[in-house]
């Protein structure tokens, strides 16, 4: 494969006529999100890739400097559309670290539960998009309609379907409504049954296995070196999870069993299966968190939020999102607005840099699959 590839590349360099461009994105159906690669192609083989990023750039980091500490909560979920909650929690936790606020235990548990729910919505979308990229639309439709149940629970709890703006500095906005907990436990049972159906249709499907196996493999050491984090790193067999290594919310009390595959190869199949295992683990975490849920208030008083000042200082918080490490570095100069907020998105090293290593070895039909198994989310590196 490699030999044929270098040969093709040589031909491409010598003769400009055999080389042509394909704009893979932004409005290519295989692309999820407003982002694009310009692929240099010979036949159906990709020989080079150029980036076409920035369609989603909104200047978040600049805008956050212009808004009040509390106002920013309406901005930050929009950094990652499919998995918005880690942003809120990362921002709130960092601000709490700076202001030295200790939030109530119940609020920590509520954050944990909402984070896991948000992870589940994102993972459902990720699993479904693997089906979408290979033409198995049925599984995509099933998963997306199941995702709606989770969004309904979010709507009941927070009032918003996609963006919840549920966390605040000092806790969360409100406690669980009556009957919410019974319903979510019911929903977890529903998903556990559904997983078997997903397995039949997607993960045990011989064609899917055949297509994903051996696609764009990466070893654990390489993944660490290239900044790959989260489920994609765990798919290479590295046991690393920020929920355990650097706990936030209530993860130091709720037990997390990181799912690691035996003989993980780090190829696309391992990544796809990893997502499914993570989904199962999320169900367990929600159940455990609800079992251990303490009583008490959900928020500490922080005074008038419009006049909230955070003491001078800087801190970094990293959160394990469904795509990898989400980090917020916040610098405060003691004012009513943050001095500087820097966002570390999980997709950037993969989507903008690892692509230069991986894509020129695969063919056009695998580009969308490669993106989906790495669960690249364009808004978090465009910001």
């Amino acid at each position, binding site marked *: 494969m490699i030999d044929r590839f270098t040969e093709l590349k040589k031909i491409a360099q010598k003769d400009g006529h055999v080389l042509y461009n394909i704009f893979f994105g932004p409005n290519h159906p295989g692309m999820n999100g407003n982002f694009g690669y310009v692929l240099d192609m010979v036949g159906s083989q990709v020989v080079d890739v150029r980036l076409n*990023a920035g369609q989603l*750039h909104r200047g978040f*980091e600049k805008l956050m400097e212009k808004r009040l500490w509390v106002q920013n909560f309406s901005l930050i979920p929009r950094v990652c559309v499919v998995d918005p909650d880690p942003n809120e929690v990362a921002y709130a936790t960092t601000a709490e670290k700076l202001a030295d606020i200790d939030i109530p235990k119940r609020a920590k548990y509520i954050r944990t539960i909402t984070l896991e729910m948000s992870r589940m919505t994102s993972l459902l979308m990720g699993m479904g998009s693997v089906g979408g990229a290979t033409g198995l639309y049925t599984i995509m439709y099933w998963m997306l309609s199941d995702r709606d149940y989770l969004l309904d629970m979010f709507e009941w709890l927070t009032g918003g379907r996609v963006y919840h703006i549920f966390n605040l500095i000092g806790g969360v906005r409100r406690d669980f409504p009556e009957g919410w907990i019974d319903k979510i436990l019911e929903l977890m049972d529903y998903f556990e049954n559904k997983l078997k159906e997903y397995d039949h249709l997607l993960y045990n499907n011989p064609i899917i296995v055949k297509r994903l196996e051996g696609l764009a493999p990466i070893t654990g050491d390489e993944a660490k070196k290239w*900044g790959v984090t989260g489920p994609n790193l765990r798919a290479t067999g590295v046991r690393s999870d920020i929920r355990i290594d650097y706990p936030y919310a209530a993860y130091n009390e709720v037990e997390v069993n990181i799912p690691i595959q035996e003989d993980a190869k780090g190829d696309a199949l391992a990544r796809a299966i990893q997502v499914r295992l993570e989904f199962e683990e999320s169900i367990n975490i929600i159940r455990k968190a609800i079992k251990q849920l303490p009583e008490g208030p959900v928020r500490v008083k922080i005074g008038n939020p419009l006049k909230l000042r955070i003491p001078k200082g800087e*801190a*970094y918080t990293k959160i394990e999102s469904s795509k990898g490490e989400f980090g917020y570095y916040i610098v405060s100069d003691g004012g009513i607005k943050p001095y500087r907020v820097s966002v*570390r998105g999980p997709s*950037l090293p993969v989507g903008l840099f690892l692509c230069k290593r991986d894509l020129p070895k695969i063919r056009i039909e695998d580009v969308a699959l490669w993106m989906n198994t790495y669960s690249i989310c364009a808004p978090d590196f465009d910001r």
Partner: protein
Amino acid sequence: MKIKEMLENIKKEFPYIGTEIQEEKQARIYVCNDKFLNILTYLRNEKFEHLANIFAIDWIDEKEFEINYNLWSYEYLVSIIVKVRIPRDKAKIPTALNIWDHAQIYEREVHEFFGIEFIGNPDLSPLFLHNWKDLPPMRKDFDTEAFSRKAFDVGEREGEK
């Protein structure tokens, strides 16, 4: 190994740095301009293998840029942020490309938004912005609201059909 000992070890090797502990698992290292690559290499060999990101802070009152290298060790489970200050009017700094490959893309991003030049980075062409002629937008002296009013005509509806 506790974070305190770790910092002391580093300090033994490089006596000229300043350190600060944020919390149990997080610390900062302040370093002057020309030595920071040695420290990054040292940390990289000392199992701080994950470069989470590179970002800059514009300290406009002090006329300085601060470049931050956000590191994480999978072995010690500790996060260290290496901070380098450079003067604002001579914004040039050597690249960390030889230590981490993907530093390239972060440096490209910082270059675009702050106008800081990374010496030795082969590709610093614009990536996110379209046909940008103004000041690099993330600098503190760039006024985003005025730009938006001027470029996108906020609030006025005259001249339309």
